[in-house]
């Protein structure tokens, strides 16, 4: 009996240990109160890296989603890609003031205060400029900034009228078509850094403030929501309605963002009522298939924020022949690729026919089809090749009796869609006698920078502010013109794209440049990567995705309504 008692004792100790672990009273956090009412839990599919979205670590869509509704923004892109001012914060309609130097002016709502009572002022705009200036005299070590074209073009940001009027002036001769996007990811409260004893007028002080905002989350807010407790970049972020907000109080009183990296767990959690929605940054056929069978769930798919393309390395000897490049592009069947990658769940998908603008953009012009690129027409490709002196000998393409060397086709390991695309391209090219050897890379940046490829499959992100992109892609001196395109006319055009005063003018130059690039058969656009979102209609209403913003479907969270 003694042993039995001992065993029982041991069991009791064990069980009570579990109970003690589970049942100690709930941890109390120093909250901003409120919450609990109309609470919505939303999935963020990757952890963030830092709380300053301007920094290298923090500059991700995930961080911008977490900070959304806490940092004030001057304006935002609508789902249709139209710029809209945030009339809660900016009471005028800023316009470019032509003069010796380009400038514009914001008038801040006099009622607009941070939740600690301090006004939202010019100081906050000034900090944003300094942070992104990339100028070591203003900001030591570039403030660890992820870089910004606009920030580097600004000469000064000045406040007047008690800091409620802000004037931004560009450097001499500088123009930027996307001038209005200044601060669009959110403004930080400069006064909080000052209160920490940081001198923002020195370069070192700015660097310190950059780290200060990166290392710890804000405790105050300048918008509809405020963090409750301590949010975690790799865990849970709880946002509750900001009681000090001067505008309308949102109907959803609490938004909880949960980092969840395991896509297999999303739909079970949704059906179990643990989460109410998500707008993941990655595509998954199976998640969509699971969603299709569910009641009370609304989901949508649309072209997302990036596009896939095939790049040619101009330094490859064989590929220096323009005819070969055109033939390769002609042989690839892009519609088939689109169908087999995303077509099943997104039947509307079409080949992308412009390097800068997707089909839905108002500036879109088809620069691809006229060259027959992406048509998957092996006969036309062979005809082109024969004209240029090539010969198809059995299964091998030959030039002057010598086989065209095998081409190395590379993409990032683990990227499912690119895996499919590369295998399809390989099959297409074999029809014109070209061998493509698929080789994955685990270091996309390095592979690109060293141009360690013959054909490269990768993606560019696409945002409505396209102005700097053509320069980045194609200028002969750009660090991101990996394949080494060097055409003087293109250089001129992409310079003009960046140096225009209006988006329309800029787009015109961008399209001209894109047409030249197509003529060179340098880059073959493939498809816009689609994105999907879903939410539980028995909880919330008014959710729409917004692929023009990093915030995706959360963009209008303050307008969502609760369903009872």
């Amino acid at each position, binding site marked *: 009996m003694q042993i039995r008692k001992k065993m029982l004792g041991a069991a009791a100790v064990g069980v009570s240990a579990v109970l003690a672990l589970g049942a100690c009273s709930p941890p109390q956090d120093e909250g901003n109160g409120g919450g609990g009412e109309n609470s919505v839990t939303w999935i963020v599919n990757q952890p963030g890296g830092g709380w300053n979205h301007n920094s290298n670590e923090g500059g991700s869509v995930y961080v911008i989603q977490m900070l959304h509704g806490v940092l004030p923004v001057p304006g935002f892109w609508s789902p249709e890609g139209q710029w809209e001012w945030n009339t809660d914060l900016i009471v005028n309609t800023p316009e470019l003031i032509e003069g010796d130097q380009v400038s514009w002016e914001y008038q801040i709502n006099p009622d607009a205060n941070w939740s600690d009572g301090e006004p939202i002022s010019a100081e906050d705009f000034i900090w944003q400029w300094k942070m992104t200036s990339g100028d070591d005299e203003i900001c030591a070590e570039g403030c660890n900034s992820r870089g910004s074209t606009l920030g580097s073009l600004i000469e000064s940001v000045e406040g007047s009228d008690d800091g409620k009027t802000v004037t931004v002036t560009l450097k001499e001769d500088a123009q930027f078509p996307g001038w209005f996007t200044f601060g669009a990811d959110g403004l930080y409260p400069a006064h909080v850094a000052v209160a920490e004893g940081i001198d923002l007028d020195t370069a070192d002080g700015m660097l310190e403030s950059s780290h200060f905002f990166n290392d710890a989350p804000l405790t105050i807010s300048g918008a509809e929501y405020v963090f409750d407790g301590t949010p975690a970049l790799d865990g849970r972020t709880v946002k509750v309605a900001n009681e000090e907000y001067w505008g309308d109080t949102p109907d959803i009183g609490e938004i909880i963002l949960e980092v969840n990296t395991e896509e297999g767990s999303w739909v079970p959690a949704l059906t179990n009522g643990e989460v109410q929605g998500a707008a993941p940054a990655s595509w998954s056929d199976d998640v969509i298939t699971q969603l299709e069978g569910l009641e009370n769930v609304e989901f949508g798919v649309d072209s997302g924020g990036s596009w896939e393309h095939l790049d040619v390395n101009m330094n490859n000897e064989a590929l220096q022949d323009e005819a070969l490049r055109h033939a390769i592009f002609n042989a690839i069947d892009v519609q088939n690729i689109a169908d087999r990658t995303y077509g099943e769940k997104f039947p509307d998908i079409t080949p992308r026919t412009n390097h800068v603008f997707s089909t839905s953009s108002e500036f879109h012009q088809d620069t691809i089809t006229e060259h027959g690129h992406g048509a998957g027409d092996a006969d036309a490709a062979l005809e082109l090749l024969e004209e240029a002196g090539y010969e198809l000998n059995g299964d091998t393409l030959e030039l002057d009796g010598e086989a065209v060397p095998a081409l190395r086709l590379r993409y990032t*390991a*683990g990227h499912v869609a690119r895996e499919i695309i590369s295998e399809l391209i390989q*099959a297409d090219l074999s029809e014109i006698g070209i061998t493509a050897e698929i080789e994955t890379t685990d270091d996309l940046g390095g592979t690109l920078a060293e141009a360690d490829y013959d054909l490269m499959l990768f993606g560019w992100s696409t945002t409505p502010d396209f102005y700097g992109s053509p320069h980045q892609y194609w200028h002969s001196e750009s660090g991101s013109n990996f394949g080494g395109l060097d055409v003087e006319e293109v250089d001129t055009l992409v310079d003009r794209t960046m140096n225009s005063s209006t988006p329309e003018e800029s787009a015109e130059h961008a399209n001209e440049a894109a047409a030249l690039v197509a003529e060179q058969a340098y880059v073959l656009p493939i498809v816009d990567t689609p994105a999907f979102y879903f939410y539980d209609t028995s909880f919330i209403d008014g959710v729409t995705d917004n692929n023009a913003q990093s915030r995706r479907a959360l963009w209008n969270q303050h307008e969502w309504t609760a369903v009872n």
Partner: protein
Amino acid sequence: MSEMQSRIAMSGGGPENPEQPVAKGGDLTQIQIIWRRFRRHRAAMISLVLLALITAFAFLGPLVWQWGHTVNSDIPSNAGPSWDHPFGTTKQGNDVFAQTMRGAQQSLKVAFTVAVLSTVVGATWGAVAGYYRGRVDAIMMRIADIFLIIPLIVAVASINGNVRGGATWYAVALIMCLFSWATIARVVRGVVLSLREQEFIEAARAAGAKASRIIFRHLLPNAAGPIIVAATLLIAVAVLTEAGLSFIGFGIQPPDISLGKMVEGARTAAFTRPWLFYPPGVLIVLICLTINFIGDGLRDALDPRQTMVRR
């Protein structure tokens, strides 16, 4: 402990004649005895047949099956099971049946490589340590300890995480070996420690046999029983580890495929397209199950006492 070890030693077959430790004829009868005992273990026999079938499916199947495991534009996208594609097809146009064969092949290749290589290295290491004892033993076993304290899956993940793209089946297998030979070394050392005290080893030593001869001709063959059992179980561990690695994204990388990779890719399809989820998963379970039963049967066959109880 010592009781068990001597039992294992007995079961390994204590040769009567130390001068001719493992004579051909005697060896055959030894194997025959073990085989007879093994055959009585019904679950193990069934498992052996099943495993043979799976192996044939994995290695011979691709030779006769009409589709390859790679993308083929003649294959429809996302089709359900049919006579042409018994396990359906993937989105990009793979025949899942062919993929399953290829996946099983790669998983088995990884598993057998790990088992064989780890056993060769581990058994030698453990035997040398056990034979020399003392300081050599202490140092060698501490080195083995180092590899034992890092869990296999995390060790491989931390290396593989960075050779992604280069993580072919043999890379995965080699890295797994690096962290699994020590288990075998421990087992073998224990056995050898007790074996070396036995008379036939003493006799060999007295007859002036060299250490290497004693280790490889006398000690290791007589420790064959536990070594075979441990190696068998390692196969199952390797299959599961590879699957787990694939799940967290650090296993064999595409365009190659393994069973673990297939289940990982289909884990959200369990209820929408079960034909993608279940075949590779069931195959993993079958491989591990059969191997565990075979290990069990071998243990019984090599350990006469337990078999006696059973009869």
